């Protein structure tokens, strides 16, 4: 059996005034897209920084591709996109990327070729304009993010770690990022990313780990996580809602509904014990609602996240120790 891409065993990290990670163990298999979920301040960034040997754990061990994360060449096999992004602003895009490739030991010619490939792929180099020759300063924020993303991938790493990759991305760039992650997976790379946007994770990840207050809440393949959750759930979409209709009354009936996640037109409903979904559908229709979707589902990751982490799991996050 091959070594896991990342293996964290009983890791703890304490700071002067708070505990960032209490006792965390997780395994990221090779070739997986793995999501590290948690509210702000849960310890996601601390965990990622420990994997990259930027900070050292107080206790426990971390192995990347079977090597201790402290071994000299280990971090060269990882690509990293930090949450706090930044590049040398006065440098030209190509020079920055060359430097980052240089740090990872990529020979100059190989680096140049790859940089051009990536610039073209993320449309930073078009027939009209080659942004590679521009200074980082002159790029828009979105373009800078792309450059940073290239910087994380330019040495063709076996493990790619992205800290909150979707934050600050517009839909177009988010889609480009998503496509690249899927492409990386196809090529057998391992992608580990942290996010507090659970919807993204649900759609992309093979497996997830939810952490809160420095501890693991649950982990495993997404399917298992969802089926492992108790209760019967219904997804309900309405064409429109208005305050006067009777739908509100139906959904607040405790005989039918145990809990509800109300997103105005979309509802994720946990049925009360012994309640019949047919009855719920009948009542909703009787109330005059136009139903677009009514489906008995396994609870979404979002729902599980809220249930398990809860409001009390969200500590006031400190930037930099998320």
């Amino acid at each position, binding site marked *: 059996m091959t070594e896991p891409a990342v293996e964290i065993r009983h890791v703890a990290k304490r700071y*002067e005034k708070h505990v960032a990670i209490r006792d965390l163990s997780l395994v990221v298999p090779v070739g997986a897209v793995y999501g590290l979920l948690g509210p702000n301040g849960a310890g996601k960034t601390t965990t990622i*920084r420990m994997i*990259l*040997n*930027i*900070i*050292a754990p107080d206790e426990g061990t971390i192995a990347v591709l079977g090597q201790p994360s402290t071994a*000299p*060449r280990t*971090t*060269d096999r*990882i690509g*990293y996109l*930090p949450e*706090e*992004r*930044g*590049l*040398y*602003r*006065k*440098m030209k895009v190509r*020079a920055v990327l060359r*430097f*980052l490739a*240089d*740090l*990872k*030991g990529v020979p100059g010619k190989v680096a140049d070729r790859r940089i051009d490939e990536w610039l073209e792929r993320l449309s930073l180099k078009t027939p009209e304009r080659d942004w590679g020759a521009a200074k980082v300063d002159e790029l828009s924020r979105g373009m800078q993010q792309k450059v*940073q993303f290239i*910087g*994380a991938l330019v040495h063709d790493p076996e493990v790619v770690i992205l800290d909150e990759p979707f934050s600050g991305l517009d839909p177009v760039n988010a889609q480009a990022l998503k496509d690249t992650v899927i492409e990386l997976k196809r090529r057998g790379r391992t992608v580990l990313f942290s996010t507090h946007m659970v919807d993204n994770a649900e759609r992309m990840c093979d497996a997830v780990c939810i952490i809160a207050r420095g501890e693991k809440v649950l982990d495993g393949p997404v399917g298992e996580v969802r089926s492992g959750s108790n209760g019967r759930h219904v997804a309900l979409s309405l064409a429109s809602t208005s305050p006067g209709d009777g739908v509100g009354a139906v959904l607040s009936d405790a005989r039918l509904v145990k809990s509800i996640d109300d997103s105005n037109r979309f509802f994720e409903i946990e049925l009360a014990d012994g309640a019949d979904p047919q009855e719920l559908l009948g009542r909703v229709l009787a109330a005059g609602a136009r139903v677009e979707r009514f489906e008995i589902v396994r609870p979404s990751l979002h729902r599980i996240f809220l249930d398990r982490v809860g409001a009390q799991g969200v500590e006031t996050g400190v*930037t*930099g120790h998320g």
Partner: protein
Amino acid sequence: MDELRKLWAITRREYFERVRTKWFVIATVFGPIFFGALMTVPAYFAHRTRESPELSRIRVLDATGVGLGRRVASELIGGPMGDTSLTQVEVVAPDRLPAAERAARRLVTNEQIRGYLVLDARTVAGQSARYAGVNATALNDMRRIERIVEQEVLSIRLEDKGLRSVEARSLARMDLDLDSERVSDTGRGGSGTLNIVFAVSVAMLLYVTIFLYGQNVLRGVMEERQSRVAEVVVSSVRPTTLLAGKVLGVGAVGLTQMLIWLVAALAMFRVRAPILHQFGVDALAINLPHITPGMMALLLVFFVLGFTFYAALFAVVGATVNTEQEAQQAQLPVVMLLVVSISFLQPVLNAPDGRLSGVLSWLPFSAPIIMPLRLASTQVASGQVVMALAALVASCYIAVFIAGRVYRGALLLYGKRPTLGEIWRWVGRAR
């Protein structure tokens, strides 16, 4: 080996990114122009202003009884053809001297005369003369008066011995320039003044370069932290490597600039006399001080060590501040160390082998400037040099060690400024 490759990558980036900036090009070009001006302009003005033209507008109180006053006055106004209305001579009896002095003092206060010169029996005996006036601090003026008095006393004495007054005068009149020469181990040396100029130039050059490029390190560290790029870099290299690469790269830039300046300065020495000649100043071609390759290497070592020491301190400051304003304040202690060192330039030059000089060459913050100053101006025992080097190397090690620790601690602390307590803990913590 791997870390060395990364160190090289960082050093290269720091070096080339800086050398390519406009700032570097401008400083490098204007440096030599500035030095050139420094070498020619003072000489030009010194030539223009030998002594104050008002020098002769004084009163001579002559209590010698041998007519010394009249002779001095005649020389002061430039010989028999001079303007006799300028210098007044009052022949007084020795017991009336205090009253005459009071009267003269009033005239000085009323600005009718510049000052008064008292000549008495002690003057004739070759012991003393007194001058009081508004220009008493003007060195050139005082030296001129002193020389004239000496010359006239000498010619009076020669006449007493039976020489004819013309002969006595021509014998006594001389205008000697003291050309001092420094002797060193190698048996050769340039002129004494030139060695001082050289020594001061070396000290100033080291001071300026360490100052400028130390601050450069500070700004680099600060920007790296502000722009968050530091996190990407330390995910590939150890923070200490990043710091070391930065110090090396910036130091290499400083060295490059210094070498360019040095070559330019040497060239300037050669063209100085012709340039001055254009302005009608006859300056002697300056013979360059004799510098052995060993000495050159030693000065270089002091620069490298001194820069490393200060760069580490500046890096600590850069790692703990978030804005330019904070940096201005926080760097003050480091800047003070540098300024204090250079402010001892004069005392050290006066007594390069004194105790003060010895102590300052030991202290790590002043050694990189004071020791080269001494090396260039006098003969320093090799034992002392070795000890100073050892002390400096040890201090560098400690400074870099502390800087590395603080750097690592502060690098990922965004937005807030660390407290002294936190900094202290970082220094104490291995990781």
